[in-house]
């Protein structure tokens, strides 16, 4: 921990003085101490210095977005809860911090039995349906799993960014960082037999479905160990055994496919649903409405999830859609608007949608989310939106930070443990990249494999059933 502390922090007098002022204010308010009398300042300033130093050591954070901003005004109820818990018992977190570091190591909670109730950030808005409640039940284990999985996803996308810049990944690379909560929340609400189909921003959804980091990176780099044997690329990740159907490059074309998956589920009388994901750009495709009409006509268990990150490549949603209320565009199909940066809201909405779809047919979920990167790696992402907007969303609505605050609020882990998880993610991602780099490029003969399923020459018999016709080369 010591070696992570940048020296300038310790020695910067400006930082110290602000910290002294702030801690003084908190200290005085906590103890009702009247420090207007000067002699007490001289007495306590040296002691204060060490207390402040102690606070620095335990609350400083190498990641840029959690220095003193965690003490800023809360933007969400969970933040308020976290802040209230932090500041009401100032000594309490201090004591737990000190106890964890100096005394015993409290392992982070993998408790699956305690129920924690979390409120979603904003209430749901329904169209033609009653929205579900804002209170979501979860367990400490689930919270920690959310954090871990999202940390892995975030790390993978950032690593893909640098791999693209070093030309190991070519072509198109559409990154999902910022939108991880949609994938995580969805996975928490469904089983691996429910189908998911999405467009080209599929890396994290593939991970959520059970894909490994090695398969992802190998596929991105076009190696044999990739999930599609290197022949698909970034936009064609598939995982059949986990019912993940890709991975499609043409905008909107996956929506009729998704309704086809739902049709097959209904045909076979399975009790599963299909989540057909598309973006705000694809929401203007005609085939979407055609597919929605058919799904509603035949009561197919299809859930259409619009991941509204507000930009269709370079065009803002208000410039592309007359009615950007995508959850209402189903008209006769019910819709639900969800805060897509809150994993618990997504989880609740997907659970609600699954129950609805199995009984009543299709439903549209609009996930209000945001992508930090541009549309793809060739898009800087700042020509059509301001950097302030991006950093603003990152500060206020980042899905990982929300989970982090929840974890702290419920005392499930310390900051160091979460940092360790992030470090572990980084390590595993680096290992996966190294392993993927070692995987060879596909063999030349692979050019011609899998074009047809069985190759040529269906066997056929003449009418007397004795003569077997020739099979072609």
């Amino acid at each position, binding site marked *: 921990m010591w070696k992570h502390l940048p020296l300038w922090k310790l020695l910067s007098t400006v930082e110290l003085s602000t910290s002294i002022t702030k801690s003084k204010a908190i200290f005085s308010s906590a103890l009702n101490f009247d420090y207007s009398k000067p002699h007490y300042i001289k007495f306590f300033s040296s002691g204060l210095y060490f207390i402040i130093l102690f606070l620095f050591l335990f609350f400083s954070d190498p990641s840029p977005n959690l220095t003193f901003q965690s003490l800023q005004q809360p933007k969400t109820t969970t933040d308020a809860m976290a802040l209230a818990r932090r500041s009401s018992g100032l000594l309490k977190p201090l004591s737990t911090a000190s106890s964890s570091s100096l005394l015993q190591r409290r392992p982070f909670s993998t408790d699956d039995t305690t129920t924690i109730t979390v409120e979603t950030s904003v209430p749901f808005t329904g169209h033609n349906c009653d929205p579900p409640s804002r209170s979501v039940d979860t367990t400490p284990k689930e919270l920690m799993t959310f954090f871990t999985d999202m940390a892995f996803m975030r790390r993978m996308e950032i690593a893909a960014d640098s791999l693209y810049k070093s030309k190991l990944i070519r072509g198109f690379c559409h990154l999902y960082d910022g939108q991880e909560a949609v994938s995580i929340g969805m996975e928490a609400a469904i089983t691996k037999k429910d189908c998911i189909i999405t467009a080209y921003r599929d890396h994290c959804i593939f991970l959520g479905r059970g894909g490994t980091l090695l398969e992802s990176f190998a596929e991105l780099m076009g190696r044999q160990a990739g999930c599609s044997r290197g022949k698909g690329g970034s936009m064609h990740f598939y995982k059949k055994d986990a019912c993940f159907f890709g991975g499609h490059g043409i905008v909107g074309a996956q929506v009729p496919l998704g309704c086809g998956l739902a049709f097959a589920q209904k045909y076979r009388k399975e009790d599963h649903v299909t989540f057909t994901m598309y973006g705000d750009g694809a929401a203007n495709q005609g*085939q979407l409405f055609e597919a929605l009409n*058919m799904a509603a006509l035949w009561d197919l268990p299809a859930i259409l999830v619009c991941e509204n990150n507000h930009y269709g490549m370079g065009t803002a949603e208000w410039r592309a859609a007359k009615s950007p209320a995508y959850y209402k565009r189903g008209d006769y199909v019910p819709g639900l608007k969800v805060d897509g940066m809150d994993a618990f809201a997504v989880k609740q909405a997907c659970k609600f949608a699954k129950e609805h779809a199995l009984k009543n047919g299709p439903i549209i979920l609009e996930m209000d989310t945001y992508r930090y990167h541009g549309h793809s790696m060739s898009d800087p992402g700042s020509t059509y939106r301001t950097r302030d907007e991006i950093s603003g969303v990152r500060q206020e609505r980042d899905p990982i930070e929300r989970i982090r605050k929840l974890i702290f609020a419920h005392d499930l882990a310390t900051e160091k443990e979460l940092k360790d998880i992030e470090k572990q993610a980084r390590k595993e991602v680096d290992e996966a990249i190294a392993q993927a780099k070692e995987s060879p490029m596909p063999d030349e003969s692979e050019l011609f494999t899998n074009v047809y399923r069985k190759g040529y020459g269906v066997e056929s018999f003449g009418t007397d059933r004795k003569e077997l016709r020739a099979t072609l080369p």
Partner: protein
Amino acid sequence: MASIFQGFGAATSLSSSASFDTKKLQFSSLRSLSGKRASCVVVRSGGVKMDSDSNRIGGRGDQLVTNAVATKVDNPAASTASKPGHELLLFEALREGLEEEMERDARVCVMGEDVGHYGGSYKVTKGLAPKYGDLRVLDTPIAENSFTGMGIGAAMMGLRPIIEGMNMGFLLLAFNQISNNCGMLHYTSGGQFKIPVVIRGPGGVGRQLGAEHSQRLESYFQSIPGIQMVACSTPYNAKGLMKAAIRSDNPVILFEHVLLYNLKERIPDEEYVLNLEEAEMVRPGEHVTILTYSRMRYHVMQAAKTLVNKGYDPEVIDIRSLKPFDLYTIGNSIKKTHRVLIVEECMRTGGIGASLTAAITENFHDYLDAPIMCLSSQDVPTPYAGTLEEWTVVQPPQIVAAVEQLCR
């Protein structure tokens, strides 16, 4: 419509078929119409060297086309008595094949416009919806792009849908789904998903249906990797190819022809499946190989009789498999005859004939004694006027003239 043909049927003295019930009348009216049109064209095309034998075309052609229909050429008798098998029309043969496959495998389902309650616009799926239910014979709304996509999605999950386009031309709306998802998914997923769909529908130039309803889509689909294309031409191969297409794990596009639905033939009672990639030897010969498919087979057979009278011995092969080509059968034929004539209904530019010409030249150039001739439809939208429409497609006299030029 039946009444008009009845008039024609009465006018031209017809073949040896004895009784005239309505079904046979439709078939014979088809022959008579083509016979009549052939004679019209002969009159007009003064440039074509036609001798007095031309009068015999109209008369003999009708009789002899009967023979051309049967796949076994050594069966000249057209009498329908005491022969094994049962007689039916081409659309009934398709239905029989479809029904047998639906009976055999519960995963086979049909989706298309008006296939269920209406029974299919060409009656191919008549009677299936009451038998198998509305979910297995699905009436879709008019949304080709998305119901084709739906069929492909269902296939990814393990079903075996048959997607019907009411007319092949409408499938242009579904081109994205057919090209990207149907053809390429098996490859881009690294072999994880198979797409065992059958996309079928009538295409080709019909009776003054207009430009948009007379399209030949073989040329547009032929370069999509991962699909197979077959064209049926007789009730026998229609049923066999339909069954093979349904059983195949690859996406297959089955091209039918609007004008061939009422062809009548005797097909075997027992079950049979044809090879999807095999061409059919219609008439073995020595002098020239004529490669054709779908409706042009009948024009070729009609011309073949004229050629036989003139002393030529054409070998007629119905290629059936448009993608991939059966270069084995074609190659053997070329090695024997050394001359090739391709007769197709596709457009001149970028059609099946163009690809076939390229494939033959690449592989069998040394065996050719003359350049490959390709007769195709004109590069024009099909006009509505009947006479103009006749001129867009290849007619038997043109075939005869082409063979004569080849064998000079």
